């Protein structure tokens, strides 16, 4: 289990992580979403011991990462957002090298290399120079490298970035297999729908702060709730409707197009019901009341957008 408590990190005047808290349970395939510069890579680098936080701590299975870095390095695998490959080595030599970095040699290393290449569907490229591999293949090789010591936890920093659809699909399948093997996987991306397809839970980071976390079902529910409510009423009662809606604390914005009102509503399903009941009690003739189908993108944009507006207001 990974627990991140009150993490702070500053680069000069830029606050990259600001009281960041996160908990990822064992066996989860956790999607870590945020726009560029939100703090995803910084968090990951601190988690794998490549960066020192200014404050806070990272606990892996209850042990502090910073104090037990060498010991925990064996539990954690990291695939950064760049390849980091030695071009003059073959795929097999490359994995052998990293196997030996974990004290695995000889026939054990041979067997492990074969297994890993098979896992990432690169067995046929075993003796090919890394330089001769495609982008997708390199990414899969890097994933194999991250798995060389059979870690319990895998940190993948934007692994699908720059890959074509076929390579993305292959990567997703591999990650699903790894997840089925019981690995805890934390995968970052700036595209929420991409992660929603394979993750069991998702966290959204913005300006170094975790703004939303939940299971993928909850995220989908939230996405559905993120689109505006549509209300069709009698045109003559529009003013009365406006008056009722204004008094509702969950109504953020109302726009009218003829007799159709679009309501940005932040309450729950029950709150929606209560609002509808109040309209009916006031004898408003409601001919239609529905929510447009929400998307994960709209949810992400709503969260990130809200934060940006709030920050702007404070300034």
């Amino acid at each position: 289990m990974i627990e991140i408590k009150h993490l702070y990190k500053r680069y000069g005047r830029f606050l990259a992580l600001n009281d960041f808290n996160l908990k990822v349970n064992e066996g989860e395939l956790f999607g870590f979403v945020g726009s560029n510069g939100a703090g995803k890579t910084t968090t990951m680098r601190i988690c794998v011991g490549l960066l020192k936080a200014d404050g806070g701590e990272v606990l892996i299975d209850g042990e502090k990462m910073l104090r037990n870095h060498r010991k925990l390095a064996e539990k954690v695998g990291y695939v950064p957002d760049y390849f980091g490959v030695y071009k003059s080595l073959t795929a097999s030599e490359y994995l052998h090298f990293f196997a030996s970095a974990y004290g695995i040699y000889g026939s054990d290393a041979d067997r492990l290399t074969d297994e890993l290449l098979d896992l990432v569907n690169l067995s046929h490229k075993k003796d090919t120079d890394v330089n001769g591999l495609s982008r997708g293949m390199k990414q899969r090789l890097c994933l194999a490298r991250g798995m060389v010591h059979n870690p319990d936890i895998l940190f993948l920093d934007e692994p699908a970035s720059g890959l074509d659809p076929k390579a993305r699909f292959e990567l997703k399948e591999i990650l699903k297999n790894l997840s089925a093997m019981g690995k805890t996987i934390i995968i970052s991306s700036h595209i929420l729908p991409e992660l929603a397809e394979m993750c069991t839970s998702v966290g959204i980071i913005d300006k170094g702060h975790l703004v939303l976390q939940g299971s993928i079902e909850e995220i989908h529910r939230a996405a559905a709730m993120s689109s505006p409510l549509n209300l069709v009423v009698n045109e003559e009662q529009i003013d009365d409707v406006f008056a009722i809606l204004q008094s509702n604390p969950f109504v953020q914005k109302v726009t009218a197009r003829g007799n159709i009102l679009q309501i940005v509503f932040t309450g729950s399903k029950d709150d929606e019901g209560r609002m509808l009941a109040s309209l009916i009690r006031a004898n408003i003739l409601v001919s239609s009341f529905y929510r447009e189908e929400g998307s994960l993108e709209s949810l992400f944009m709503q969260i990130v957008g809200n934060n940006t507006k709030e920050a702007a207001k404070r300034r």
Partner: protein
Amino acid sequence: MSEQTKKLKKNKRNAVLYKEMTMDMKRPKILIIALLINLFLAPIGICFFIGIVIAAMNGSCSYRVLAWYLISMVYVEATMLLFITPAITAGSVSLEKERQTLDVLLTTRMTPWEIIKGKYGSDFILLSFMVVSTFPLLAIVFIYGGISFIQLLYLGLVLIVFIGFISCFGIFFSALTKNTILSVILTYLTLMIYFAFTFMLPIILLWIIAGINSALYYDNDLFYWVTTQDFINGDFLIYLGTFNPIYMIFDAIGSTIGYDIEDVSVKGMTSVAELLPHMTEKNIILKLWTPISMIEMVLISLGMLRLSAVFLNPVKGKDRTVKKRVKKTNTPVKGENKANTQAVNIDNGVQ
């Protein structure tokens, strides 16, 4: 994955060293550099050889000619190594940074010290191979004798310590900087300053003391160098020269082959005792100048490598208490607002 791999064994060999050697063997670099060094040294050898053959035919060949051949070869080789070594070592770690492979290495079980050892080891083996590859050219002296095989090996050992010492500067700046070009420049610059400083420092200090002595006792000859035993004793300052590789090579050659020019014979640093009134040729430090110098250089090398490992450690420094740091960092910088949003565990909608 097999369960066997889960029980990790302790690292038996240095993975970086092994990988570097594998990569070096694949590239023609190692052979090209060895070839260039030998191509540069070979004409000197051929010239001496022809000269000796002609002199021998005239019946006037002295074995001292071959001694001077060896002396010049060692100096030329040392000069070449002085320029080649930084070029090879100064990119060692910085290239890993540029290739972005260092981060991945640092997340493995390998410690920064193991990475530095691997990098240094591979460069050292490569450069030692260069030195060994020139041995056949140096061995020409065996045609006429006058020098033993052990003495030749001793000179080889001195050259190996010499490259080992210079390599450390390259590795150090390579670990310190992110850019190979900057690392190369800093390495050459620092080496130049180090060589000049440690070479000149004892001379300048002895000169100053000689000047003071002259001012006190010889009013008419302010810059008189040789003083008598009654004067201020600053002779021990010559020991500072043990830190200089040029003095080390000078002494190593002097104590094995000797610099004989007609009637004058210079036997390394012990001959310097003639210029120092408080010292004799029996001075143990002057006698053991080269071994002492070699030990000092090995120790400096180890220190620099250790320091390089510290620079390479991404989480160096103590783990400070969480609360203290949080309090400090929590204060927003002027013009920057602390985010006041809270993470929402969603079960009833977006916040």
